[in-house]
């Protein structure tokens, strides 16, 4: 890693901005957050990712002050924030519905928080103008929220929550209401604004692509627990569990039994009558331990002839999903297992030489697969 890489979580001396310590949140008998410990550092763009009901929104609402922890301690910049009401926290939130005040103009919406701070008139004017410029809304200042488009409303909501220069900005599914193309543009805009303002962003999303694009680190959550916290690359390339591998992107999971062979190497018995697969793992496995081999489809090569590779299996093409830039081949192995392989369509489709019902070879290297314990 170079010296300029932003990675405070690798520095043991770094003080986290937010610190969750054994936090539990219960609603009646339902446990929304289950004994969770997490550090988030200044200037991070931190994504909470998980299916609906996994507790990510509850976690965010505890930071905003709308919910209090049932147990444990939440610190913001070293201070315990339990019981501090939302209006006394240096934290602002951008709501999923945007929650723009319909009776106020764009300008007044952005100025709303500044006015509550009894800021001088000239200062408010300057700050609002700065926010309008940052979000490219100068020409819409006098409009009411219902007089602007969805994308513009999203930017007003962002400008309003950034206006008070919070230590921490919370974004609850900020791009959920936008269509796909606008969402992608806006993701880069968000990253740009985050960099310019140097604010710490915590974003809640169920869209893994969005989390991967914008975040410096991603926390994958399930049932009120954090399953893995890592950079997008680590999460994708080195998931720590079947759940994470399956939740992030597309993955082939092959179940088998591991046997050590050489340093960090294992051979995996996966189907009767088939040669074992070889894989590498830094995590130790005992002999005959059950494991899952996770291989990303784009790391599986497809060919007519048997290739020279660490792992090669033969199968029959079941289905082809043509996505334009890439095609995904669904190949059924003799054991009945279906493996997905992806290939970039570098040639025009007319010259594609693999088609339905073809017998093909799938291959991947020993380092391409990740071994996961049960």
């Amino acid at each position, binding site marked *: 890693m170079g010296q300029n890489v932003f990675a405070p979580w690798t520095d043991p001396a770094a003080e986290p901005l937010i610190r969750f310590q054994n936090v539990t949140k219960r609603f009646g008998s339902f446990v929304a957050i289950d004994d969770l410990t997490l550090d988030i550092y200044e200037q991070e763009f931190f994504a909470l990712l998980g299916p609906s009901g996994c507790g990510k929104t509850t976690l965010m609402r505890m930071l905003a002050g709308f919910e209090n922890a049932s147990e444990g301690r939440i610190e913001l910049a070293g201070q315990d924030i339990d019981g501090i009401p939302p*209006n006394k926290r240096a*934290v602002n*939130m951008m709501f999923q519905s945007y929650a723009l005040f319909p*009776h106020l103009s764009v300008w007044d919406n952005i100025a*709303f*928080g500044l006015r509550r701070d009894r800021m001088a008139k000239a200062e408010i004017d300057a700050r609002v103008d700065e926010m309008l410029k940052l979000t490219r809304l100068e020409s819409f200042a006098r409009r009411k929220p*219902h007089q602007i488009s969805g994308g*513009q409303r999203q930017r007003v909501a962002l400008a309003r929550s950034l206006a008070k220069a919070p230590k921490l900005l919370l974004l609850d599914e900020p791009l959920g209401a936008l269509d796909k193309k606008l969402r992608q543009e806006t993701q880069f805009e968000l990253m740009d604004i985050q960099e310019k303002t140097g604010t710490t962003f915590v974003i809640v999303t169920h869209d893994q692509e969005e989390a991967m694009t914008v975040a410096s680190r991603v926390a994958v959550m399930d049932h009120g627990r954090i399953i893995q916290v890592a950079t997008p690359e680590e999460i994708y390339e080195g998931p720590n569990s079947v759940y994470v591998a399956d939740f992030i992107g597309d993955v082939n999971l092959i179940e088998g039994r591991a046997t050590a062979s050489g340093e960090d190497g294992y051979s995996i018995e996966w189907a009767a009558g088939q040669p074992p697969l070889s894989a590498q793992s830094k995590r130790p496995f005992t002999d005959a331990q059950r494991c899952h081999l996770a291989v990303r489809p784009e790391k599986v090569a497809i060919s007519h002839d048997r290739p020279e590779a660490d792992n090669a299996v033969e199968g029959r093409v079941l289905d082809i999903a043509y996505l334009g830039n890439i095609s995904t081949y669904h190949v059924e192995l003799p054991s009945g297992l279906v493996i997905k392989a992806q290939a970039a369509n570098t040639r025009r489709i007319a010259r594609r030489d693999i088609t339905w019902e073809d017998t093909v070879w799938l291959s991947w290297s020993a380092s391409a697969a990740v071994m996961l314990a049960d």
Partner: protein
Amino acid sequence: MTRLSWFNTVSLTLGFAFLYIPMIILIIYSFNESRLVTVWAGFSTKWYGELIRNEAMLDAAWVTLRVAVMSSTIATVLGTMAAYVLVREGRFFGRTLFSGMIYAPLVMPEVITGLSLLLLFIGLGLDRGILTIVLAHTTFSMCFVSVVVSSRLVTFDRSLEEAALDLGCSPFEAFRLVTLPIIAPAVISGWLLAFTLSLDDLVIASFTSGPSATTLPIKIFSAVRLGVSPEINALSTIMIAIVTVGVITASLVSKRNALRRQKDEQAAVQNA
């Protein structure tokens, strides 16, 4: 525009005739020259002139107006507060009981409400007059306000209030600066409803009014018992006119707002 079939034309005519013929007759006879209500003797506006000179009648009108303004204002404040707590504060102990109880006066026979208030005022030793009528009207119109306001609050996006808190408002500021302006139309219609209810209430007012204060409906009712005079017709016509103008204005304003909003939203989509 489609032409109505003969059946639909007939049902429409019958329906509206049923609703409006009595009122039309009343309006026509208010311009009757004759003192006899049922005998037409030519057009005249003299009963309107008589009405203006009738001190007792004007006094009653003034009392009614004051009672209506005061009671509807107090009812609006109390009713809005009750609706806010019942809709917003979720499940507190006894919530179902309270929300049921606030609607009960809607179906309570007015005679009973009037009688119980009368007993209360006597028990308290309150002299019956404007104050007691205001209190009584507040009591029964408050639940109407609360129904109107809570139906608006149910559809109110809670995150708007949370956003206000998040941006530094105290809970009261959030209500004053965000919730109240947004639910204002419902609060205003609640006020208008309470105002109208108070304006035309006869039963409760007759229990709670005293010799020092008589409202217009009581005045009209007692006058009619001595025989319908064309003056009463004139007075009723004026009341109908006021109500009509009010209703038409309110619907025009809301229609214009709706149209403007629709146009704005179309423009926003096109500019996007």
